[in-house]
């Protein structure tokens, strides 16, 4: 029995891209308890709903997080559209699905890069981020923004993406596939990478269910709560099936994300084939009525929950977002118990926390 030591981890730490602070209670090299403390990035963004009307709020909501920004604007818009009983044009819904999946590819590539960096595999990090740039190029070319797109508004999309551009996106993705295969195979087959991940940070199905974990973390342990199985978006028509792994360790969580990248490419290509012609937005008149509405979408990190409450004026009473990481912090606390100090970065990484999402 060694002496207990408390090691503070973060907020400014070389392995952390974002500020989170963990108090790690150690016994020799083993973590006995981890207590997260957050609040370094808390802005109080949801309260801006009192100063911005429901349409402008869409852009504020987009800035919940710079990585899954498109999804946040979609989720918020979907909640407001539900509240106001607006039917979004078919083409807009398809475009949202395409852009959301593009965000997923870029988010997962970003994550794979950070994972490689956490392992000390710097060249792999560089390759992942190099590939990610082609997705950002698509964003820049079609919407003008690289990370914050401001492409969604209440009632549809800002502008149409012409047929030629969609065809170009498909070509870019097809070309990416070969290179992606080379890079992602390193994650799945390389011995040194596998040594760091296989059998590390095991989470059982029961843990996941009990602690309400979501997203790729849950799917890595065989629990499906992928919000893409719900009706929002065009996933059902495209025959979406969630990707599940059963091992529940860091490697399984990595594998889920790798497979999801390829799945997203397939979804986009299929969607571009099926996208109908037509308008991409409809004029929105009137004010959000009294009442509330809930929308859920699947962000790259898991299910996100949006809640809006209207009062008949153009200012909403409440706009709430429960981001994926918010629900995954309890499982992070759980997985850190009993692991070795040098595996902490690996654990934190494979949960894929997004702190600015969590704290808003």
């Amino acid at each position, binding site marked *: 029995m060694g002496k207990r030591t408390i090691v503070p981890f973060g907020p400014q730490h070389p392995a952390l891209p974002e500020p989170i602070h963990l108090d790690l209670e150690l016994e020799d090299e083993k973590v006995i308890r981890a207590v997260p403390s957050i609040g370094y990035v808390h802005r109080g963004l949801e309260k801006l709903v009192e100063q911005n009307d429901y349409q402008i709020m869409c852009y504020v909501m987009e800035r919940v997080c710079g990585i899954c920004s498109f999804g946040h604007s979609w989720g918020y818009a979907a909640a407001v559209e539900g509240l106001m009983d607006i039917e979004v044009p078919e083409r807009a819904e398809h475009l949202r699905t395409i852009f959301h999946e593009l965000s997923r590819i870029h988010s997962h590539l970003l994550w794979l890069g950070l994972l490689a960096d956490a392992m000390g595999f710097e060249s792999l990090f560089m390759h992942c981020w190099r590939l990610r740039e082609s997705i950002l190029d698509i964003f820049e070319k079609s919407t003008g923004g690289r990370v914050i797109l401001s492409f969604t508004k209440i009632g549809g999309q800002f502008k149409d993406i012409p047929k030629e551009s969609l065809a170009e996106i498909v070509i870019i993705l097809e070309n990416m596939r070969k290179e992606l295969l080379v890079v992602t195979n390193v994650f799945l087959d390389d011995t040194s990478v596998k040594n760091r991940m296989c059998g590390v940070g095991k989470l059982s199905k029961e843990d996941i269910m009990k*602690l*309400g974990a979501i997203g790729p973390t849950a799917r890595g342990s065989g629990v499906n709560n992928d919000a893409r199985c*719900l009706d929002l978006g065009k996933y059902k028509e495209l025959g979406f099936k969630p990707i599940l792994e059963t091992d529940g360790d860091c490697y399984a969580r990595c594998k889920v994300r790798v497979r999801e990248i390829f799945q997203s490419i397939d979804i986009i290509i299929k969607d571009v084939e099926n996208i109908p012609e037509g308008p991409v937005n409809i004029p929105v008149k009137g004010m959000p009525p009294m009442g509330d509405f809930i*929308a*859920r979408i699947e962000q790259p990190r898991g299910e996100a929950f949006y809640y809006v409450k209207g009062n008949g004026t153009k200012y909403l009473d409440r706009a709430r977002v*429960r981001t994926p990481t918010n629900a995954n912090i309890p499982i992070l606390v759980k997985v850190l118990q009993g692991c070795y100090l040098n595996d902490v970065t690996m654990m934190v990484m494979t949960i894929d926390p997004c702190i600015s999402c969590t704290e808003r």
Partner: protein
Amino acid sequence: MTRSHEVQEITEISYSDLLVKAKELAEGGYRAVQICATSKDGKTEMLYSFDKDFKMINYRVNVPSEMRVSSITGFFWSAFIFENEVHDLFGIEFTDLVLDYKGNFFKLSSKTPWKTEAKKEVQ
């Protein structure tokens, strides 16, 4: 044209039923999705959401001012994160909170920024 939203199921329950319902759901294998508080004119309304197999159940609870709310962390440990957040932002006290940060979850520049004062009645 598509209408693709989930069925909205929000049930209003009385404050005293909360723990009973939470126990039922926990035994039924639900997970805590979120807890959201809304404060207007000094009144606070809490929305509890639970999910199982893509079926979401929402309970709305009206919390009287200065009332201490019983924590559901006994049944859903993971809810500590939501309850601490509500405590810090809305100033609502929870009883039997399993992991209590005692107001240090978010360090804020102003205390309980979301709390609203009751409108004064004009006589």
